[in-house]
């Protein structure tokens, strides 16, 4: 079976509002630039897969009027309505069949046009959850409270995750928030929904990202050194928060186990150099350590306190600064992939981490209460 590799990537500038560009301009910039990065022409691409969300775009079937800018005119094409990392997963399995050589993958969103609260509340069923007014902050706050109380954590503990990621983000020229914060500053920032405060929550971000995937034969001769996809796992948990133990991320655990099986990983810490995860709120990162098997349940905080997951630690998590420093909904998971690709190829820049195994873990999440999770292992 042919291996599938990433041979090019592009991230747009991430900022709270890309005021002077519309959605299609963002897509166009991204596609033109990723082709430049891989030194390919659009004629070398035989498959396009995009990730976007109609509710954010304010357009039904939102890939329909993006074909010009996406370069999908008269090409085989499909759209995944979820995070870009899911589109990557889908593209990967399709590429394994050998029917295509180069696949262009684009994820884009301008949540500043729609408002993330609207997006999340529309994801609630109209009968039970929507009338409660749940959205991203309030749903995560319920989960944080449950997590803190189950394992005896404090708000200061979560603040330390934000401090760690903002410190890493301050070195990353590609991210949005590049200023360090202190525990005290996090604690003094205003509550969005108790116990969650502004500085431990992901910002609002507009942006787009793209990668080019190639089969082994093409990737080996590519301009850029390829990063190979070793495997994927993904899973979706129960929808209703009342049906779940919110102090755990079961779907993250299932996704991780499937990815480890596919990639042949037995001991994550021993075999992988670092991880990039989607922690839209600081406490999620600790919960994810537990789901990914980096530590036992309730012990995520220890890894933070011991500096294990610091950018200079034994197993850095989110050397890019993570989603706490930039969170373009729908694109964030693909950003984790691209940040890992840049790390593995030694192109990360000031936030480059030391590696000796040449492997990275990537995590993406979607849905309220982190209902859906995806894990992938990449290798150089």
């Amino acid at each position: 079976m042919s291996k599938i590799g990433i041979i090019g990537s592009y991230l747009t500038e991430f900022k709270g509002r890309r005021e002077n560009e519309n959605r299609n301009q963002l897509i166009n910039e991204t596609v033109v630039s990723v082709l430049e990065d891989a030194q390919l022409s659009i004629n070398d691409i035989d498959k396009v897969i995009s990730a976007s969300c109609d509710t954010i775009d304010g357009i039904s079937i939102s890939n329909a009027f993006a074909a010009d800018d996406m370069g999908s005119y008269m090409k085989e094409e499909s759209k995944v309505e979820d995070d870009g990392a899911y589109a990557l997963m889908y593209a990967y399995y399709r590429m394994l069949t050998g029917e295509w050589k180069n696949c262009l993958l684009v994820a884009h969103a301008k949540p500043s046009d729609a408002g993330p609260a609207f997006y999340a509340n529309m994801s609630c069923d109209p009968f039970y959850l929507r009338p409660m007014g749940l959205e991203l902050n309030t749903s995560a706050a319920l989960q944080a409270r449950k997590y803190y109380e189950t394992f005896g954590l404090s708000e200061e503990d979560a603040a330390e995750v934000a401090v760690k990621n903002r410190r890493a983000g301050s070195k990353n020229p590609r991210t949005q928030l590049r200023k360090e914060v202190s525990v005290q500053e996090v604690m003094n920032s205003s509550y969005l929904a108790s116990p969650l405060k502004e500085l431990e929550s992901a910002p609002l971000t507009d942006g787009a990202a793209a990668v080019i995937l190639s089969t082994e034969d093409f990737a080996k001769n590519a301009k850029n050194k390829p990063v190979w996809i070793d495997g994927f796992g993904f899973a979706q948990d129960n929808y209703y928060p009342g049906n779940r133990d919110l102090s755990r991320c079961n779907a993250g655990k299932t996704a991780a186990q499937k990815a480890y099986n596919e990639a042949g990983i037995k001991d994550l810490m021993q075999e992988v150099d670092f991880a990039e995860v989607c922690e839209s709120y600081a406490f999620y990162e600790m919960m994810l350590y537990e789901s990914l098997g980096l530590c036992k349940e309730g012990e995520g905080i220890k890894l933070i306190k011991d500096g294990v997951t610091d950018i200079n630690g034994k197993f850095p998590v989110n050397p890019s600064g993570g989603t706490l420093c930039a969170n373009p909904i729908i694109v964030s998971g693909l950003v984790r992939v691209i940040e890992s690709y840049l790390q593995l190829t030694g192109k990360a820049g000031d936030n480059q981490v030391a590696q000796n195994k040449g492997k990275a873990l990537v995590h993406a999440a979607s849905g309220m209460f982190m209902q859906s999770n995806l894990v992938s292992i990449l290798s150089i």
Partner: protein
Amino acid sequence: MTSKVGVVGIGMTENKSRWDVSIPALYRLGAKSAYEDAGLSPKDIDAFVFGHSPEYFEGVNQPEKWCGDAIGATDKPLFRIHTGGTVGGSAAIGAYYLVASGKFDVVMAISGNKLNETSSAQIGLSTVYDPIMGRQFAAGAPSAAAIQAAKYYNKHGYSNEIGLKVAVKNRNNALNNPYAQLKIPDYNLEGAKNTPMLCDPLRMADMCPTSDAVCAMIFAKEEKAEEITDKIAWALGASSTNEGLNYPDRDWSKPIGLRLAAEKAYERAGIKNPLKELDVAEVYDAFAPQEMIWYEGLNFCDWGEGGNLLESGATQMDGELPVNPSGGVLCANSIGAAAMFRKAEAALQVMGRAGDRQVPGARLSLGHGWGGAIQFHTVMIFGSDKS
């Protein structure tokens, strides 16, 4: 292709307007029907590919999150594909490729919509157009299909009533399909001509109905499929394409995107002469004239010959290549499930399980889907034999 892939189970709900179930409950009925058909349960499914058309129809974002539990996908791999009217086809193709990758043994594709939740599906369809350049003059799908039909009739000199002959053919076929919505006894050309004009040249008879429905298909890798059943529809080739925007010189009556999808799928399935080799086809005839236009895109005949192919009787139930034995989209259109119904009906035909709408001896079939703003197409080929 790493693994050969077969369809081992099909689930369908009846197409109708229904108020007895919620959206997840409708998906549950579709999934349950597929589980029962294949003799499988949720624990046998390795992954789910979830299809659903625009959120604007029912007002729920990320419906796959809400519906996952109802189809048995809790704590399982599930993701959503969304490509408008083709979504059912895109989801089926997604499940097919997951199995073909060699990494999954059994995958369920499920797709649907509950269109009666909205006051008009046309509101959701008009928001397809760009908010700055196009939405001001958008008037739903019929206005676009009318332009397409007028262009087709004028370019090739067909009468405005030839589309009604497609309607008569398909509506009579639908009488044999227990899942169809429009079942009108003694449907004839005279009656169709007397239906009101909706959007010139399209009459009411040229239109599809508004349905609530879910369709599901279970795909399995070769060895697994043969364990599950001896009536397998082998998926032999697939393609989904994008024809792009409404650029000024685009001819809506000449679907070059569909021709591309067809050529790719035929090449993968080893088909050289589709009219001769295919035994039956199910195409996405949301508006009657489109069926003739799709004949041409699918290379059943040359450009401009679709109307003549219809008039020759070749696509009647007893013709050389029966098209839409189920009655097609003209008799049932939930949008979200419609393109998967085409694939599922095509699969049932080569399994020899299509009941009263069975084309005798069918061994090679095609299922088509159309969507977006007249630019997406999906094509899948199924066979009784593995190659």
